[in-house]
């Protein structure tokens, strides 16, 4: 059976995606900065789905460890969920926070996915799923650094899809809108626009199975973002978004 590497497995979305792929019969490699937190998720996956599940330490910003890390695992599917989000006002005032966001969300993701893509091109098969964000579709004040790091990641995934297409490597971009996670539980989110991590996982799995290029979670976010992208800049710059 094929193996899926879940990068960022301690996040709510990472856990849900791991369970979804395990339920579909994939063996699971769970990777996170603190893999010692993942014992319960591993036992849960072992018992519920009877697939192989292993734990691995992965730090997105320790770029020089990435090659050896990937080489030891060689999964059939690589999924990146990891990311950092600080208060934008804090990040604007403190470069170290902004830098961490950029390095985790963009540089770290590019580093590990370059390695994965090279391996898949050589194999002439494989799949990469990158969890980006609707926040990357248009720059705005309330998502200044986070949004721009995700915009860069979205552009990278599009380029990678173009580069790998002829080599039979599937690259899928996922853009979630609002999601109920521990990170957002103190924000009032509009219920009809918000997904649960389990819904995100279902949609990601279905998109992967259908070899989609870019999916929004949920689907209507594509049209919400279409409207937002089409607001003329002279107007957009005056708006509070």
């Amino acid at each position: 059976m094929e193996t899926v590497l879940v990068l960022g497995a301690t996040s709510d979305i990472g856990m849900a995606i791991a369970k979804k792929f395990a339920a579909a019969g994939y063996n699971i490699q769970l990777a996170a900065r603190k893999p010692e937190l993942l014992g319960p998720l591993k036992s849960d996956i072992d018992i519920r789905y009877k697939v192989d599940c292993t734990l691995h330490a992965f730090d997105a910003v320790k770029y020089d460890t990435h090659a050896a890390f990937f080489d030891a695992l060689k999964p059939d599917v690589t999924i990146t969920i990891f990311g950092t989000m600080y208060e934008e006002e804090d990040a604007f005032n403190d470069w170290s926070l902004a830098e961490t966001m950029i390095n985790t969300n963009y540089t770290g993701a590019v580093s590990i996915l370059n390695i994965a893509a090279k391996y898949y091109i050589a194999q002439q098969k494989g799949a990469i799923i990158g969890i980006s964000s609707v926040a990357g579709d248009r720059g705005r004040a309330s998502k200044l650094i986070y949004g721009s790091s995700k915009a860069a990641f979205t552009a990278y995934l599009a380029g990678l899809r173009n580069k790998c297409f002829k080599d039979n490597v599937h690259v899928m971009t996922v853009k979630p809108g609002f999601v109920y996670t521990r990170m957002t539980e103190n924000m009032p989110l509009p219920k009809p626009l918000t997904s649960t991590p389990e819904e995100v996982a279902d949609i990601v799995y279905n998109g992967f199975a259908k070899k989609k290029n870019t999916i929004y979670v949920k689907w209507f976010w594509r049209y919400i973002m279409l409207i937002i992208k089409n607001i003329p800049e002279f107007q957009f710059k005056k708006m509070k978004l």
Partner: protein
Amino acid sequence: MIKPIANWGNYPVIESNEESFVFDEQLDALILKEQPFIARGNGRCYGDASLADRTISTLKFNKILSFDAAAGVFECQSGITLDQILTVIVPQGWFLPVTPGTKFVTIGGALASDVHGKNHHVDGSISNHVLDFDLVLASGDVITCSPSVNPDLFEATCGGMGLTGVISRVKFRLKKIETSFIKQKQIKAANLQELIELFDTYKDYTYSVAWIDCLKKGEHFGRSILMLGEHATVNELGENQRTNPLKLPGNKQITFPINMPSWVLNQFTVKAFNFLYYGKNFKKEINNVVSYEPFFYPLDKVLHWNRLYGKKGFVQYQFVLPLDAKQGLIEILTRISDEGLGSFLAVLKVFGKQKSMISFPKEGYTLALDFPVRGNLLAFLDELDELVLKYKGRLYMSKDARMKPEILVAGYPELEKFKSIVKKYNPDGKIRSAQSDRLLLTDTK
């Protein structure tokens, strides 16, 4: 985020800051915050037991830790629901040792309420099957409890409504089954006397419970349907059922769409319902083999059925009276029928013996009733409380939203001991709920 929350009765509703955790270290951080709190599972108790200004939701703490499918021992984090557990254990030939009437409770909540099922007279309550659990105290310390290790804390936590600490991990024994089907027998009883005799005749059945029509007067006073069940063996299954004896029931569900306007429920509609419900069984006795789901969880089929009772919500009233207090049962049912306060769900069951510090069950008759919240309901329930006390009975805290503290004191002889254990492990009353404040289980500040 502060938002209005309520338990299954939708009464009362309070504003609460609810936060969740996935890892032990996050639970520690939440517990050590200054503001008092109560742990909260899936909100399936009925009243105000898991409500407070600050609540810690266990729902994301829901992983299975171990499952010994040879010995039938299951270990999990406290936020997993029984529904989730069943999907894992049933196909491997195991069942919950005790289950309440809904599978949408968490195991932590089940233990904090020390839930009982239709098999109480044979198997006792859930705590009888627990090997050990971890409890995170108000101080952040973790204590493992079992019937032999920290037994006082074990006993005070089972049925203790979350006041001793946050239950974080539970390990318990399962029940071996050959099939996922139940061999069911339903017998109509023309009145209460006949029902009580039937309970006695069939006391060897593992599962027994009765639906009772509490509006009927005269010679059919207490007419009812007794429902009995045993786990079916493969030989008892029909041909189709035998192709997959450990089949999981499908998860088709209906959602009750809206809060019903409260005028819909009245004496006449309840009488009509009771007439149809009693009348649907044409024969005196029905015998068949059904999936475990309709037998144990008939109401889980309808999500949000509590909306039936409208926006104002309802109160479930459950009490137990000793076996020799049949007269009390008659008196209470008469009082309800005179008041015209019929309840769709009037359920009678016989409890077996139980050792209990704060757990609800004790040997006798237990009756559970649902009453929509209306103007004079609370005063009426206070009257019923007096009758329950007169016959040496007590009320179930997991259903309670309104009893007065003296009713609790009179019903639970070991209450002082329970309070002293709570005081010992939760000295500053940091763990407290709307219910514990109302019932003076934690010092009010």
